[in-house]
Structures are given as structure tokens and as C-alpha cells.
């Protein structure tokens, strides 16, 4: 490379950084920097009225799973915390499986429409995706609450004599999670199925495969990266859900997100809240590393 070319490259790189700088400054101030500060806070001591006292302590971290028994001063696993963590993981996993089961046929349906119709169906999936999460959660709430539409209709039809209690249960949260995060499953699945070479289907049928064999031995293995991507895109926000359990779980059935909030509110234990947040962040980052691998794997094979 000539000197002039090197100088040009250096100038181009410098411009790249300069142009990106304003965005990076804002992101450092209002997104990345605060995470670092939160990491510091997780090693401090809770203040009596919230916030922190600047005294080093690892109680925020140990407090995630252990607590000192107030009677015999021994460290014990905190069952209440475990219940919340387990509920979060369980609900997120079930949500992922359910959205996959109904999202895959939906994405297939969209991908196999004529181009014009496909654009319309795709738009219909995108609208809920961009609609305010709170509005969608309220909509579910209004359908399933005691005096909601579902109960009213079932009562009128005489199927039930008393309103079913559906809100403020794990089931209600599950319905909400599936409803809200379904587009996050359908969209990457659609992208994968759209790239899927339709001629392979004919090759499969030509070689004596049945419908189910074509599905399980041709389609699913080939679009697996899309399935992994969709699953992670659903699992990650489900695990960090806050609004859905608050609106549909009624504050009693907490998930990790609500548990974090509790530490910054009535719990008055900021270090614990910070430690749990960082734990959640680590879990999510690990999941996203798998996601990146899945997506780049798809590009490599396709």
C-alpha cells in the first residue's frame, strides 16, 4: 500500500470515529455508563431509606440466594427468591416453546403466500410488534379479567355460572407473555423460511418423503438457526419481563423484573437489586452470544 493510500485510510477511520462520536457519547451517558455504576452499587451497603451507603459489602450478591436467619444467624437459601427465579425461568421457557409451536406454522403460512399477500400478512404481524407493550398487555387483561370479555361471553352462553378467575395467575402471565412476544418469534422464523429454497421441498417429495418427513428432515434442520434466533429473541425479554407480570400477575406473582423493582422500592436494598440486574444481564448476554452464532451460522449455510 502506498503512503497516500495509508493516509487516506487513516483519515477515513478518523472520520468514522468522529461521525460515531455523538451517538457514542449519548449511549455512554444514558445506557452503558449507568450499567458500570450499577456494578459498583452492587458492592455497596444499602441505606436505611433506600439508595446506598458507601461501604464495601458483598451482601448484595450473596443476598440473591442466601439470607441470614434472624433467629439462629445461619445462612440459608432464600426460598422466596428461588420461587421467583424458578417462575421466571419456567414461564420464559414455556413461552418460548408455545410461541414456537404457534409461530412456526404462522411464519410458514406468511412465507408461502403470493408476494403481495405476503406483504399484507407480514404487516399484520408487525403492527402488534410495534404497538405499545402496555396497551397490548391491557388488551389481554380486559379479555381475561373477572368482568372481562371472555367471562362475560362464557356466562352469557351458559358455559360457566361464575366468572373464572384468570388474572393474577401464572397462567395469565403466560398468556400475556405468549401474546406479547409472539411477533418476536414469527419475524425471524419468517426471515429464515423466506430464504429457504422452496425447490428442496420438491426434491424431498420426489425422493419419497411424506409431508411429515419433509417437515422434520428437510425444513426444520435447514431453518434451525432461525428457530434458535426466534427462541432467544423470545426468551430474553420474557426473562426480563416487568410490565406483563405487573399487569397480569397483579404484583403477587412476581417475576425477576418485578423483584428487581421491589429492591429499589419497598425492599430498600439497592445493592441486591443491582446484583440481580447484573446477573440477569449476564444470562441475557450469554443467550445473545448463542443468538449471534445462530444467525451467522445461517448466513454461512444459506
Amino acid at each position: 500500500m502506498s503512503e497516500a493510500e495509508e493516509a487516506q485510510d487513516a483519515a477515513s477511520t478518523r472520520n468514522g470515529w468522529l461521525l460515531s462520536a455523538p451517538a457514542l457519547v449519548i449511549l455512554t451517558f444514558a445506557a452503558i455508563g449507568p450499567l458500570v455504576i450499577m456494578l459498583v452499587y452492587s458492592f455497596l451497603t444499602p441505606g436505611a431509606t433506600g439508595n446506598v451507603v458507601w461501604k464495601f459489602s458483598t451482601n448484595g450478591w450473596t443476598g440473591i440466594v442466601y439470607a441470614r436467619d434472624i433467629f439462629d444467624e445461619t445462612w440459608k437459601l432464600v426460598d422466596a427468591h428461588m420461587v421467583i427465579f424458578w417462575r421466571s425461568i419456567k414461564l420464559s421457557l414455556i413461552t418460548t416453546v408455545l410461541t414456537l409451536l404457534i409461530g412456526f406454522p404462522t411464519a410458514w403460512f406468511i412465507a408461502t403466500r403470493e408476494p403481495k399477500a405476503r406483504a399484507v400478512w407480514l404487516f399484520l404481524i408487525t403492527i402488534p410488534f410495534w404497538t405499545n407493550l402496555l396497551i397490548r398487555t391491557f388488551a389481554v387483561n380486559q379479555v381475561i379479567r373477572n368482568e372481562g370479555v371472555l367471562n362475560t361471553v362464557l356466562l352469557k352462553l351458559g358455559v360457566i355460572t361464575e366468572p373464572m378467575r384468570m388474572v393474577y395467575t401464572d397462567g395469565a402471565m403466560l398468556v400475556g407473555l405468549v401474546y406479547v412476544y409472539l411477533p418476536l418469534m414469527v419475524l425471524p422464523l419468517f426471515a429464515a423460511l423466506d430464504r429457504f429454497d422452496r425447490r428442496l421441498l420438491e426434491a424431498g417429495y420426489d425422493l419419497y418423503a411424506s409431508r411429515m418427513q419433509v417437515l422434520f428432515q428437510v425444513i426444520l434442520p435447514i431453518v434451525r438457526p432461525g428457530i434458535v434466533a426466534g427462541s432467544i429473541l423470545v426468551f430474553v425479554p420474557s426473562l426480563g419481563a416487568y410490565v406483563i407480570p405487573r399487569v397480569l400477575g397483579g404484583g403477587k406473582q412476581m417475576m425477576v423484573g418485578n423483584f428487581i423493582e421491589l429492591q429499589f422500592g419497598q425492599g430498600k436494598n439497592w445493592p441486591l437489586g443491582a446484583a440481580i440486574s447484573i446477573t440477569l444481564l449476564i444470562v441475557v448476554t450469554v443467550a445473545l452470544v448463542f443468538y449471534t452464532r445462530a444467525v451467522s451460522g445461517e448466513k454461512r449455510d444459506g
Partner: protein
Amino acid sequence: MARRSFSATSLPGFSAIAVATFVMLYLPIITLVAYSFNASDSISQWGGLSLKWYAVAWENDQVRKAAGFTLLVATLAAVISTAVATMAAIGTTRRKPFRGQTWIYVAINQPLMVPEIVTAVALLIFFASLRKLTGYSGIGYMVAAHTAFCIPFAYLPIRARLEGMDLTLETAAADLYASGWQTFRFVTLPLLLPGVLAGAMLAFVTSLDTVVITEFIKSPGQDTLPTYMLGQLRRAMKPDVNAISTGLLLVTLILLFAFFLLTRKRE
């Protein structure tokens, strides 16, 4: 003779599940919208068509104030995030990949990757200290938080547009004696404009959609429509919440339509 032709793309039951999914997706939203026009006081009893809940919402000072604040924050966040995202998009495309570029991508997409609740409490911690330190508790925090959150949404469509752009056009402009700035002003920018507008739409919609961050960092009197609605949850819900939702829904829908028109591939 009605023997069905063989279709390689059909799979048993898939269409039925898909149609059921679409019904499931839209039934609650349609119900929510329908009950915003309900004359009855309850959100479950149908009492005939009426616009009364829109009037109730509109006459509520809190709602009006929240609506104004929502639009103000969304507009500021959309404008700022789109401006910095456009610069960053130009800075990270159409040049030789440079060291650190990946880190810029990671930083820009960071708000997409971190759970909103985590960002929210991190901002709560940071802004609480800042408030104590500076005594300032104005709109700045909210705008900064929303802007940061909106940057990736503005950045992605702009970058997509830039990557799809024909580089030879700029070479052609340079060949026709345009200076670097002239090339940008008269060739790149006009071609990029649909992408910039699309990015701004998504940023605006994203700001409207932001609930958790807003709820955690708001100072007293800084309610947006979503946090106002969340606050109503403790009370017996009235259909005025449906009216507010419908209004927000309408704004989102209009912006989405605009976005799709802007990003539609031309034949």
C-alpha cells in the same frame, strides 16, 4: 372434477393455526378499541356507541399534560437520535472496516440487548445521584434516556439504506467535479432521506412504547401517557384508558404506514 392439485408448500394444519394466530393477535386489540367507544361505565358491559370516554380523557388535565409531555419527549428523542444515528451510520459504512467498528456496533445496539428493566434501574441509580449532585431534575434525563434507547431503532434502517446504496453514484458525482460536501449534499443525502425518515418514525414509535424506563426515572409531574395508564391500574379501570390506548394506537399505526411506504422496495 375437483381433484386437488399437489402443492409442495402446504403442510397439514398450518394454515388453520396461522389464521387462529392472527385472530388471537387481533381480538384483544379490537376489543380494547371497541370498548373505547362504549357508552357504559364498565369495561365489560356494552352500552351502545359513544365518544364520551374520549371526552372524559380529553377533559382530564393529567391526561392532557401527559399527552403533551409524551409527544415532546418523543419528538426530541426522535430528532436527536436520528441525527446522531445518521452520522454514526455514515461513519460505520462505506469505508474500509476499521478496528473498533465492531465495538461501535455493539455500543449502538446495546439498548436492544439489555433487558429494559436493567437499563431502567441502572438509569435510576445514576440519575438519582446526578439529581442530588446538580439539583437539576428537568426533562433532560427523560430525553437522554429515550434518545439512547431510540438510537439503534433509528440507526438500523439508515444503515440498511446506506448499504443498499450504489457507491458508483458518488464516484460519478466526484467525476462530475462535485466536492466531498457537494456530493454529500446533492447525491448522498437525497438518496438517504427515505432511510432517515424511516429511522425517525421508528425512533418516535419506540419512544411512545417505552414504559419501564420512563416509570423508573420520571420526576414528579413527568408522567407520559404509558406511565399514566400504568398508574390507573391500581384504580378500577375505566374505558378512558381504552380511549387513550386507541389514540396512541392510531399514532403508531400512521407512523408505521409511513415507515413501510418509505422503505418499500421499488420495482
